[in-house]
């Protein structure tokens, strides 16, 4: 069995005078929680829309479960579900009817009531099954969207900014749900986000896209290895602190930035480094571990903020 369940090759979309996405080459393995990271307007949604056949690519191809999307659309999408941007529904119908409609499009027949209710139960909406969706909050709609995605037991779920507009509790619930889908049901999750900590907390592999182009792709652990053990030091006088840290055996990569002094120090040597600074008569205000993914992201995208 092919372990790569989603592969895009030179995927691109051109609008009038600009490329919304260009040369996107993704590889998503079975079982991945794949983070698709990029600033707003980077081309994440365009790429996802092309993968889910909402947008016709200008260049390249998409393969899902070994089937070419352009040539075998129905086979390619048979085991795929997704939520693009925000989940929208037939607001004048109940959650139950919305589930039935979505299910019938995948199955070719109306899904049975028991299965629909069980799936609504998973996302905690069983009691509101017969209520019209127009009475639902944004968080409930998000959960209903996930229920629709889960209804037909997909092997790959594509979630485009799934926590957008949710409160912290809602975001946490979605993150936990994603992890449960991956660990308990073995579902591969493709997750796009501009929120770094969201991806860092759940993703096993990731890709970064910026200005329509893919910058990097790989396992989260491997990609962050290069940036491991970085700390931000606030100490004065800065010159003296830099020279002291540079002279230390277990400290490397000492640079001065607008934020403060950045240095690479293994956690076990951090107390010794602080002691050295104090002994050198430096005032040490703080030593903070750098948010490694954020550092990596900023380095790759060259953006001031994601």
């Amino acid at each position, binding site marked *: 069995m092919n372990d790569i369940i989603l592969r895009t090759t030179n995927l691109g979309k051109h609008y009038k005078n600009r490329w919304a996405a260009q040369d996107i080459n993704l590889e998503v393995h079975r079982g991945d929680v794949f983070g698709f990271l990029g600033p707003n307007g980077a081309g994440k949604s365009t790429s996802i829309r092309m993968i889910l056949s*909402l*947008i*016709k690519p200008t260049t390249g191809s998409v393969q899902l479960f070994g089937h070419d999307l352009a040539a075998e659309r129905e086979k390619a999408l048979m085991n795929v579900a997704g939520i693009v941007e925000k*989940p929208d529904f037939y607001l004048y119908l109940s959650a139950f009817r919305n589930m039935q*409609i979505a299910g019938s499009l*995948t199955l*070719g027949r*109306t899904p049975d009531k028991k299965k629909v209710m069980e799936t609504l139960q998973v996302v905690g909406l069983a009691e509101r099954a017969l209520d019209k969706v127009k009475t639902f909050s944004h968080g409930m709609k998000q959960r209903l969207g996930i229920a*629709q995605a889960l209804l037909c037991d997909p092997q790959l779920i594509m979630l485009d900014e799934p926590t957008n507009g949710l409160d912290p509790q809602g975001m946490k619930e979605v993150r936990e749900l994603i992890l449960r889908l991956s660990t308990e049901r073995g579902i591969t999750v493709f997750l796009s986000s501009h929120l770094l900590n969201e991806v860092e907390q759940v993703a096993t592999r990731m890709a970064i896209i910026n200005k329509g182009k893919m910058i990097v792709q790989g396992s989260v652990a491997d990609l962050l290895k290069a940036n491991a053990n970085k700390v931000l030091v606030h100490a004065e006088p800065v010159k003296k602190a830099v020279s002291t840290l540079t002279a230390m055996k277990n400290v490397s990569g000492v640079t001065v930035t607008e934020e403060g002094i950045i240095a690479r120090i293994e956690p076990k040597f951090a107390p010794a480094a602080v002691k050295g600074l104090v002994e050198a008569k430096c005032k040490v205000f703080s030593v903070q571990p750098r948010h490694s993914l954020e550092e990596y992201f900023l380095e790759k995208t060259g953006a001031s903020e994601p």
Partner: protein
Amino acid sequence: MFNLISWELFKTYAKWRTYIGFIAVGVLLPVIMWIMWIEGGKFIQYQLRTLQSEFLITGNLFNGWVIAQIIMNGLWVHVPSLIALVAGDQLSGEATAGTFRLTLIRPVSRTRILNAKYIATLIYTASLVIFIAALSLGLGQWIFGTGDLIAVDPREGIVILAEENLLMHFLFAYLLAIWSMFVVASLAFFISALVENAIGPIIITMTVLAIFYVITFLPVESVEDIKPWLFTTHMNVWQQALRDPMDWDIIRDSVLILGAYSASFWAATLFLFRRKDILS
């Protein structure tokens, strides 16, 4: 496919706007009949005043059949807007609501989804005409009773259709009316694929109809050659069913031209829809 069509019908008939046409007809027809009940005697006397000087006319000539015919003549300008109200919302409504992002990522082809929507639109169109037919004939017969129908045939002059054959004549007339309204539904459906708001298709459909009607009835020689090819020229083909004998050549030509328009609008919609990027 049956499953898709049944869900499209469910969605169509679950919307409020679908019933606006039925409510409008359900209110308007009884009002027209009430007015006819009060004023109708004078109306029919006026219509028959020349005949009465030459012939002895007996029986109930102001009957339910006459009322149904008058209503059909009168309503035919308004029914297209009621059809456009629903047909024009079929694709643009989903684009506006964002539900294409829900349906078009599923493993079912866009062609099948579009065809299911189109068939649901045609079924709605037929159901509205059938509702008009049932209300016109049922209420008309109940209030005004039955009798022969006096119809005006441009070739034969005044034609009297015997009561015993009228049901078949009217059923055929409504069948032809459904066929002609399919063109309006197809036009609105096509425009619905072009725009992403609910009101646009209605306005554009009615504008196109108005322009075509103006050309159809314009007494100008330079447009005479194109008139036979305009669908509006053939929209009143149902009137041919109230002739005796019927002119089958005219009916055949009209049915073919109307069918060609419906098929063309459907094909154009399919062409657009299959290539449409869903950006909303």
